């Protein structure tokens, strides 16, 4: 590729230090770090909530949590994990790595970037504040409708719903700002010679994600605003008595909600091939095929939304259309899987923690994808829908496919970001504990769903007891294992063995040409790509 240009005046940059550095920064690396830190904190918050749920579900009978509080925890858990843990993690990587990967000095719109981040903490507070208010007798807690806000339940709900609506607005604005920034950066600030079809795959993943966000977030914002006016200003968008339709909300919500799944996954599909090529010591297979597949998946993701509510009632042609179009997504996805495995095939593989997470990711995300294919079938979906089968399925896609992918990225780039190697033994221990306890948590839930246990119930019939117990115990192991992750990150930030510039033997790409950690301002002169 090319050579680095590290400006030597970097040693005495004129940014404020201490807390003011973090409050006022417009530097892409600082903002990236804040996104990632925020994401990690919210991951632990969302995780603790669900451990409360799993403790309640440990055995039949109501022991710890009242049903209304139970309903609040499940919805807020999902909103936090999706909007405050997974999305900020992907944006954090984008901020850190995209400028480095395309040889740009910073993001194109640094102040917008700052604003995008600082919208997140207030929205996290809005999401969780109702819990605290309820302790003081104000309102009756957070939204208790699940993360999907379905009316009329959400119209009936208390102030928690309003708080969540405003939180979603803020999170949406933050995502759209971030997306605009990424699109502008990728289109205008690539190093000379880096054509679009030479962009790193992570940049491709994010470019499509950004377009999806801009296309769908406004629809979500519109839907929840309609909900707000239904609640307080006498409109009847979702009320049959006034000529509205509750199911219309589901259409609007999932027009956002299904692409959202790909919004969470596309950035991961971007850097997974990069990790694979690094540890297989061999360039990724089928770059073009992967780029076209990402585009195909992005385009198809906005036309399949209704498979999330087949049982709500639809005409037969609509059912058939949404079934077949959903199945069709398996085709480009299969191309991606093929390319990932072909990248490993006849490589020279080694299994450091990032590679372990990546291989585990391919297998577990594969389970998520294949069960998704089965779920597309309308007839069988009548049974799977809203049962624990679905819960298990989307945790395979979003925990394994999302969060475990992010973890692979963290271990992969942490030495570059901090300049220190993480503790490899602890990293591997973290992987094995996570992978095993994850499966033991969610495989039983597939069987619970088949046996007929609906999701979102605070208590269950005795025939579901054994699987729930296994699932709960494993969930606690899974939750506690993440403390190893947190410890490993903190100790790597503080110190540890020095990382080389290339960090990994097989690593290729502009970010690996910089020092570890990279200088505060990098690529002030852009490299030339041949």
């Amino acid at each position, binding site marked *: 590729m090319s050579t680095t240009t590290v400006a030597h005046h970097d040693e005495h940059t004129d940014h404020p230090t201490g807390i003011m550095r973090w409050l006022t920064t417009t530097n892409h690396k600082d903002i990236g770090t804040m996104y990632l830190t925020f994401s990690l904190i919210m991951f632990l918050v969302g995780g603790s909530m669900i451990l409360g749920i799993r403790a309640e579900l440990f055995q039949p009978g109501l022991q710890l949590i009242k049903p209304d509080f139970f309903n609040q925890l499940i919805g807020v858990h999902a909103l936090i994990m999706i909007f405050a843990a997974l999305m900020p993690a992907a944006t954090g990587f984008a901020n850190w790595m995209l400028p480095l990967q395309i040889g740009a000095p910073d993001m194109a719109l640094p102040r917008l970037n700052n604003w995008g981040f600082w919208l997140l903490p207030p929205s996290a507070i809005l999401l969780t504040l109702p819990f605290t208010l309820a302790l003081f007798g104000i309102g009756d807690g957070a939204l208790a409708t699940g993360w999907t806000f379905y009316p*009329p339940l959400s119209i009936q709900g208390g102030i928690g719903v309003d708080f969540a609506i405003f939180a979603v607005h803020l999170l949406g604005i933050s995502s759209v700002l971030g997306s605009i920034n990424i699109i502008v950066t990728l289109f205008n600030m690539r190093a000379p010679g880096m054509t679009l079809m030479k962009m790193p795959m992570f940049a491709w993943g994010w470019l499509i994600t950004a377009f999806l966000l801009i296309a769908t977030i406004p629809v979500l914002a519109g839907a929840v605003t309609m909900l707000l006016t239904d609640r307080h200003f006498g409109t009847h968008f979702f009320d049959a008595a006034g000529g509205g339709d509750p199911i219309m909300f589901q259409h609007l919500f999932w027009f956002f909600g299904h692409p959202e799944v790909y919004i969470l996954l596309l950035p991961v599909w971007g850097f997974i091939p990069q990790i694979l090529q690094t540890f297989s010591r061999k360039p990724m297979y089928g770059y073009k095929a992967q780029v076209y597949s990402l585009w195909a998946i992005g385009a198809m993701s906005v036309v399949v939304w209704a498979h999330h509510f087949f049982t709500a009632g639809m005409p037969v042609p609509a059912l058939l259309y949404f079934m077949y179009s959903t199945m069709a997504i398996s085709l480009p996805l299969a191309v991606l899987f093929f390319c990932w495995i072909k990248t490993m095939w006849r490589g020279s593989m080694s299994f450091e923690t990032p590679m372990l997470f990546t291989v585990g990711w391919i297998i577990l995300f594969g389970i998520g994808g294949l069960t998704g294919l089965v779920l597309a079938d309308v007839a069988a979906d009548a049974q799977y829908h809203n049962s624990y089968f679905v819960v298990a399925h989307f945790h395979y896609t979003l925990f394994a496919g999302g969060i475990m992918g992010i973890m692979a990225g963290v271990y992969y780039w942490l030495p570059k970001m901090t300049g220190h190697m993480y503790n490899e033994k602890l990293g591997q221990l973290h992987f094995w504990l996570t992978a095993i306890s994850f499966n033991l948590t969610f495989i039983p839930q597939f069987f619970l769903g088949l046996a007929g246990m609906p999701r979102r119930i605070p208590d269950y019939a005795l025939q579901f007891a054994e699987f729930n117990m296994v699932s709960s115990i494993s969930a606690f192991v899974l939750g506690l294992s993440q403390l190893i992750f947190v410890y490993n990150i903190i100790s790597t930030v503080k110190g540890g063995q020095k990382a080389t510039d290339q960090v990994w033997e097989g690593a290729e790409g502009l970010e690996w040409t910089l020092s570890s950690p990279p200088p505060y301002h990098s690529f002030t002169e852009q490299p030339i790509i041949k």
Partner: protein
Amino acid sequence: MLKQAMKKIGFGLLLLLTAPQVFAEIRWNFPEPVTPMALDTLHVHNKFMLIVAVIFVVVLAIMIYSLIKHRKSAGHQAVVDKAPSTATEIFWTLIPFVILLVIDFVIMGIPAYHSVVMMEDTKNESDMMIKITGSQWRWQYEYIGNTDKGNQNGLVDAKGIKFTSTLSTPQDQVNGTVPPVDDPKSPYLLDVDNRLVLPVGAKVRILMTSTDVLHNWWVPQFGSSRVAVPGFIRETWVQVDKAGTYRGQCKELCGKGHGYMPVVVDALPKAEYAAWVDLKQKEITAQAAGADKEWSKDELIAQGKAVYDKNCAVCHQVSGAGLPPAFPALTGSKIATSPIFDASGKYLPDSHLDRVLNGIRVMPAWKALLNDTEIAAVITYERNALGNSVGDVLQPAQVKAARQ
């Protein structure tokens, strides 16, 4: 606290390891199907699961082979891939794509098409119709009557039978004050006071709606599940081919009682079904007579307690203390202690009777769910028990009059 939790976990593990009969109950697949739709769903499910399992195992095997063979520590050198360029190479690369295309749209797609068409065909060949109304948190069943085909088949017409079906697990078990009791006759959280009764072998067209929020009527062994949408009618159908008792649950989050609105269906052979219809119709006649007679205060309070515990205690609590702020207390409540009727004998707006009949916000409109006697009884109970002592009596006849 921690010690207790550890004890529970330890006990749980012990239970898992030492009780083989526990494993006997575990289900690994759908429960036994008893309708054509459930049977079809099971076949579809088994076939698709087999296909995806084969795909998974084959891909995993290739991957694991590579993970073992192509390791750096095993001395494997990376080779340089080249893109398929010749026609033969492109052909072989496209093979997996074509296989998937065939699986998606032929092997899986064609049976799926037939299943969907069958599922949605609610009208043809149906013998009778019922209407199911979901409410927070109970089901209401109404027999609309037979179709011509049902009459030809000699099915007794249950037209006019209408009742509400509510969880019958004792409240102290539901609240968690006592542990769940393992009673096979009345399984924990899966039993109701009034079961839906259907004739074996008849195709029953089900119209579904709701009075408040979304619900979903689901019996796993029937394979049908449909959302009940307030203000709209949705349809599905069942044809239970085997006599027995079948249990299910509401499957759409509908508030804090979501886990507590089970579905229980008794499928009876035609003769027994006819006897049940006869019995029910006699009950209706008796009830209509009951609404016109004068009830004593004690009678009303006694029946009122039963109605209250079943329908009202979920929110307002058995003691009447409520769960403020969402669910106000009835003890000492203004509504439950102020007069019901004005001087001319018309019931006042925002009076006790108005609130029970018509509801407000989360409070359901009970006029659709309870009969005159039940409403009179529960109001009399609330005014003369739960720490209240207003002293008046509301007669079923007055409720009947108020409905007009």
